[in-house]
């Protein structure tokens, strides 16, 4: 099945906010069902009335326009430059956060540059909102800003940035994500699992026993559910073998969960490896 880029992005966003919500969350579910929106381009919205309000210099009108744009979502993406311009000129704190959220909803790369600037704002709420929005706008500035945000003083921002880089499929950020993982940015594991090359996936597998099991499996889970075109069966079997070797009750629980969720089209070799691993780890120590 061919998945459209939009669907893939929406699926990734689901992963981002699941992971960002809790550093030690349950293993991330496979990015399989981007159900919220139908595939294809969103219907375009006439943004002219809203843009007029944005240019009114009246805070009430501006805020109304921002609300309308948020409701319109990606269909109103053509208004992104005006929202970005407003942020560039400066707004009150409340309106700033609203404008940032709006840019996120518009999902236009044209919002990324200004969001990247606000990702370094001193006010935590503004910074968090910017990092969150950047994972949706994408664009050239987004990846760089999120990589920078991995070193932020705020742990929530570091986590969101790590998740965002996975969502953006920022493959060049994987080395940074490994550094982040070593610095207990647990969200980095899932992101690495989403985008790692074979060597990098090996590197993540080698983290078993070095970082908490439920953290590393957040990434291994992602590897196991990636399409064969991205991750070979050999790699998946290798991952399963490494988990099997731990022989613990928690690895058995993880493998059983994988077994339940395996798609029908999973290769017989991988299915067999899962079954064997589940059997081998049954009754393992806690």
């Amino acid at each position, binding site marked *: 099945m061919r998945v459209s880029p939009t669907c893939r992005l929406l699926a990734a966003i689901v992963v981002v906010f699941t992971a960002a919500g809790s550093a030690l969350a349950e293993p991330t579910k496979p990015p399989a069902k981007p159900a919220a929106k139908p595939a294809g381009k969103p219907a375009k919205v006439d943004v002219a009335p809203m843009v007029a309000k944005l240019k009114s210099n009246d805070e009430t009108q501006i805020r109304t326009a921002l609300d309308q744009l948020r409701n319109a979502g990606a269909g109103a993406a053509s208004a992104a430059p005006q929202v970005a311009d407003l942020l560039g000129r400066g707004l*009150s704190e409340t309106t*700033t956060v609203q404008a940032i959220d709006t840019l996120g909803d518009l999902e236009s790369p044209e919002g990324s540059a200004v969001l990247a*600037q606000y990702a370094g704002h001193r006010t935590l709420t503004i910074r968090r909102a910017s990092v969150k929005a950047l994972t949706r706008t994408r664009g050239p500035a987004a990846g760089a800003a999120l990589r920078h945000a991995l070193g*932020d003083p705020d742990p929530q921002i570091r986590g969101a940035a790590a998740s965002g880089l996975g969502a953006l499929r920022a493959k060049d950020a994987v080395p940074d994500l490994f*550094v982040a993982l070593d610095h207990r940015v647990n969200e980095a594991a899932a992101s690495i699992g989403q985008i790692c090359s074979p060597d990098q996936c090996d590197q993540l597998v080698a983290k078993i026993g070095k970082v908490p099991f439920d953290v590393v499996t957040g990434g291994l889970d992602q590897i196991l559910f990636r399409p064969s075109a991205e991750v070979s069966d050999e790699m998946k079997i290798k991952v399963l073998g490494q988990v099997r070797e731990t022989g613990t009750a928690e690895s058995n629980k993880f493998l059983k969960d994988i077994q339940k969720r395996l798609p029908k089209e999973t290769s017989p070799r991988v299915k067999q490896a899962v079954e064997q691993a589940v059997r081998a780890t049954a009754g393992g120590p806690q």
Partner: protein
Amino acid sequence: VKRRGFVAVAGLLALGAASCGDPNRPKTFSSDWRDDQGKTIGEVLTRVRGAKPPPSTDLVVSVAGRDKIIGTPLGAGSPWTATHALDGRPIIAGNVVVVSGNGEVVALDAASGKAIWTRPTGNVPLLGAGDDGNLTALTLSRSSGGSTLLMVGRDGTVVRQLETEKALGAPAVLGGLVFVPWAGQYVSALDPQSNEEIGRVTVREKVTRAFVVGGTLYFGDVSYVRFDDNIVRASAGQASKVGVPSRELPGTPRLLVPGTEKIPAVANARDRDRLFGRPDGASNPFGVDSNRFYADYYKLVFGFDAARGQLSWVRTHPDEVIGGEAVAGGLLTCDAQGKLTVFDALNGATTMEKSVGEPIASCTVQADTFRSPKGAPSAAPVAKQIIEAVQLREPTLATAQRLLLRELATLEDESATKTLVEIATDPRSAPVLAADARASLATRRNGASYMLTALGKHYDFLHDVLMSPPVGPMSDALAAMKEAKAAPLLASHLFDPADTEDDVKRASAALAVLATDKELPQCKQFFGMYRGTASTEDMASAVASVAEAMLRLDAKGSRPILEAALKDSNTALPVHARLDTLLAAANKDKDNKDKPDGGT
């Protein structure tokens, strides 16, 4: 009990006998004595003038474990050990070492450690001892209050024993007379033969100790008073006196342990925080040897100019210093590992090292004729010595390091700036020290290159840079130095959320002076991001400083931006007020310039 009763009666008889002598002489330790303007002490001075006590043994006596006494000669002679229970620190007096414990005092030969005599004490604490080669005077603290003064001959016989309600200090013996400080202000001279107090002086300084160094008698506690011709004017405050110069010192060190205080056998915190100075018998006016006072503070050893109080040197010792004494030409210290070190008075260079042979609990030093070996190797410059001392990451040293940091800040040396930057940016620095370093950095006017390097760093969690550089203080300094290279670095710190608001405020103020056209876009970006979100006075001030920079760099392009912000309700109130003032001043300037006469 019988013996004690006998001793008490004998004491009373002795005091009674003393009161029947010359009516001009003070009654022994009587407080109804009227100052005689130096008459009796003058007579005592005449009597002992020319007395040449034999040189005292140059010796370090250490306590190891609970009852081991180790003698380490500083000159010729062999080390010795003795064993005796100890309820206080051994006292070196002339050529004997007096130890107390197990209900007795024992005099050991300072050269060999062999016992010379033993006297029972009834477990009363030994406070002080003096000796002139023939007679040993001891003061002991009575459990019922007051003191006992015991004078013991070389054969161990008690020559005299006086009991008094007064608190006696540590005695000295010179020319056959016993000098006893008491009541914190008097020194009485007692003749053991007649059992009379033959002279007394009122010293207008606190005195609790009498001691002989290099054949000269001194009294002291917080300062030294020399027993010389001026002693007859002591009650008028004109005795020969030398004290510690008034200056900040590490901790609260004491020059001498009060002679009324029992010194524990094991060194305590006070031994790690002491002052030292050796009175110079030959100096005129009276001063201290080599014009130096010294202090120890745990692992740090300081040398101060005695006249002006300036820090001359500071040495970092590998172990904590637990005792020592000023010697001729330097300072001798002992550390807990049993290492003896002599530092040169002039520059702090190590001139001699010796080992006791094992770790020690305390030490006592007597250096009568010993002097620091000459031909000392050159020492590092004081700036380097300070830098080494302040970079020791030990919380116990923070108090002394703060003092050194202030010394460092006065040095016109770029390496001082470098060290201040390092301390301010090192997460291992004690917080008070880092705060002091920040404060000092703001006043530096050199070492810009070190500041620029530091400004190039930012908080970075991933790369374990968990402390921002001292942006604010360095901004102040670099702006004062008009260091143009700082502008781009300062501009980058406007957008670092890990910097404090104070740092951002001061960086902005520096940019108002230093920013160039290259920083204009960043100034505009900062203005846009914060003119509506600056909720504190510091941030509002930062926005105003950046606006000032914008006006300076591009008045034509920036004025509309600032005027629009002034009209916009999104602009935060504290920013609004500052913008109003800034634009009004700028307009006034412009009007003046536009006038035909240029506003003159």
